[in-house]
C-alpha cells in the first residue's frame, strides 16, 4: 500500500497510453463517426427532398389528369351537340327537299292539267266549230260568226 517506484512506472504508462490514444485512436474514430453522422444527415435530407418532389409530381399528375378528363368531357359534349345539330340540319333539309319535290310535282301536275284542259278546250272548240260549221254550212260562212265562236270558247 506504500507509495513506491510503481507510481513512476504507472505515470509513464498513463502518459504513453494517452499519447497513443490522442495520436492514433481518437482522430480516426471520431472523424469516422462525425463523417458518418454528416452522411446520414445528408441522406435524410435528400430523402425528405425526394419525398417532397414525389408529392409535387403526384399533385401535378393528378391536376393534369383532372384537366384531361374535363377536356375530354368537353370534347364529347361538343361532339354530341354537333351531331344533334347535323341531324337537325339534315332533317330540315330533307323536309325542305320533300316540300320542294311535292310543290314541283303539284305545279307539274297543274301545268299538265292546264295543258290538257287547253287541249280539250281547243278540241271541244274545234269540235263545236266543226259541229257548228256542219250546222251552219248551209246558211252562214265561218268568218261572219267567228266572234261568237270565240266567246263560246272563252266561256268553256
Amino acid at each position, binding site marked *: *500500500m*506504500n*507509495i*513506491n*517506484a*510503481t*507510481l*513512476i*512506472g*504507472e*505515470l509513464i*504508462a*498513463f*502518459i504513453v*497510453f*494517452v499519447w*497513443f*490514444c*490522442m495520436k*492514433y*485512436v*481518437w482522430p*480516426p*474514430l*471520431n*472523424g*469516422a*463517426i462525425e*463523417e*458518418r453522422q454528416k*452522411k446520414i444527415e445528408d441522406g435524410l435530407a435528400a430523402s425528405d427532398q425526394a419525398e417532397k418532389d414525389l408529392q409535387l409530381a403526384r399533385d401535378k399528375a393528378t391536376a393534369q389528369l383532372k384537366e384531361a378528363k374535363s377536356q375530354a368531357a368537353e370534347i364529347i359534349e361538343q361532339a354530341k351537340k354537333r351531331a344533334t345539330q347535323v341531324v337537325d340540319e339534315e332533317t330540315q333539309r330533307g323536309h325542305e327537299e320533300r316540300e320542294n319535290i311535292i310543290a314541283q310535282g303539284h305545279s307539274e301536275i297543274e301545268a299538265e292539267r292546264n295543258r290538257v284542259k287547253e287541249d280539250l278546250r281547243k278540241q271541244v272548240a274545234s269540235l263545236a266549230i266543226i259541229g257548228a260549221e256542219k250546222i251552219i254550212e248551209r246558211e252562214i260562212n265561218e268568218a261572219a260568226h267567228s266572234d261568237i265562236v270565240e266567246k263560246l270558247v272563252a266561256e268553256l
Partner: protein
Amino acid sequence: MAAEEQTLQGYIKHHLTNGQVALTDDPTNTFMVLNVDTLAWSIGLGLIFLWIFKGAANKATLGVPGKWQCLIEMVVEFVDQNVKDTFHGKSRLIAPLALTIFVWVFLMNLMDLIPVDFLPWIAGQVGVASGAVESSHDIYMKVVPTTDLNLTAALALGVFALIIFYSIRVKGVMGFVKELTLNPFSAKNPVLQALLIPINFVMEAITLIARPISLSLRLFGNLYAGELIFILIAAIGLFQLPLHFVWAVFHILVIVLQAFIFMMLTIVYLSLASTDH
C-alpha cells in the same frame, strides 16, 4: 498450501499484498520497489484497451458499422458528448484523455469481478510448476490494479500536471499566481491586501492540491473496499456463492460509476483550469 494461509488474517493479508520486486539491495529503501502485479495488469489492460479501440479505428468506415463497431463508437460518442457538454474550449487532448481514463479504469475495475482466488491460484500453480518458488503461498498477486494507491495516484498526478499546464497556458504564469493569491479575499487597501495574500494562497493551494488527492483516494478507496469485501465473502466458505453473486451485481455499478466519476472530474477540473474568471 502453507499453514499461514489457513488463518483468516493470513488469507486476507496474502490477498492484499502486492507482488514486489526490489530495485536496490538495500531492504530499508522502501521507495525503490516495483509492484510487478499492478504494473503487469494495468499495462496489459491498457494495451488491450488500445488494441480494441485501434482495431475499431482501423475498421471505421462510412458504411453501415457492425455491432462491435457500434459498441466501441457508442463509448467514444458517450465520452465525446460528456467532454463537449463540460469543456467549452478547444483541445485535442481532453477527449482522448477522458476516453483513456474511462475505459482503462473501467477495465482495471472489471478485474474485481473475477473470483478473488482464481488468478492468484493459477499464478501460484505456474510458479510452483516452473520451480521459481517452493510453495504457491510465496506468490503474491493483486489482480485489480486500481486497488493499488500507486496507480490511482499516478493517474491523479497526471491530471494534476495537466491542470497546472492548462491554468498557465490559458491565464499565463502571472494570471495563475494572481488566481492563487487574490481570491477569495481581496481589499482596496494595499497593506490589507498584502496581509490577505498568504491566507488566500493557503486556501487556494489546499483547493488545488485536494483535487488530485481526492481523485486518487476516491478511486482507490472504493475499489479497495470492494475488493476487501470480496475477499471476506470468499473466506466464509460454503455460503459464499449467493453472497458473492449479490455483491458482484452491486459492484458492477461501482465499477462503471467510479470510472465515470474519475473521467468526469478530470474533465471538470481541466475545464475550470482553462476558464478565465
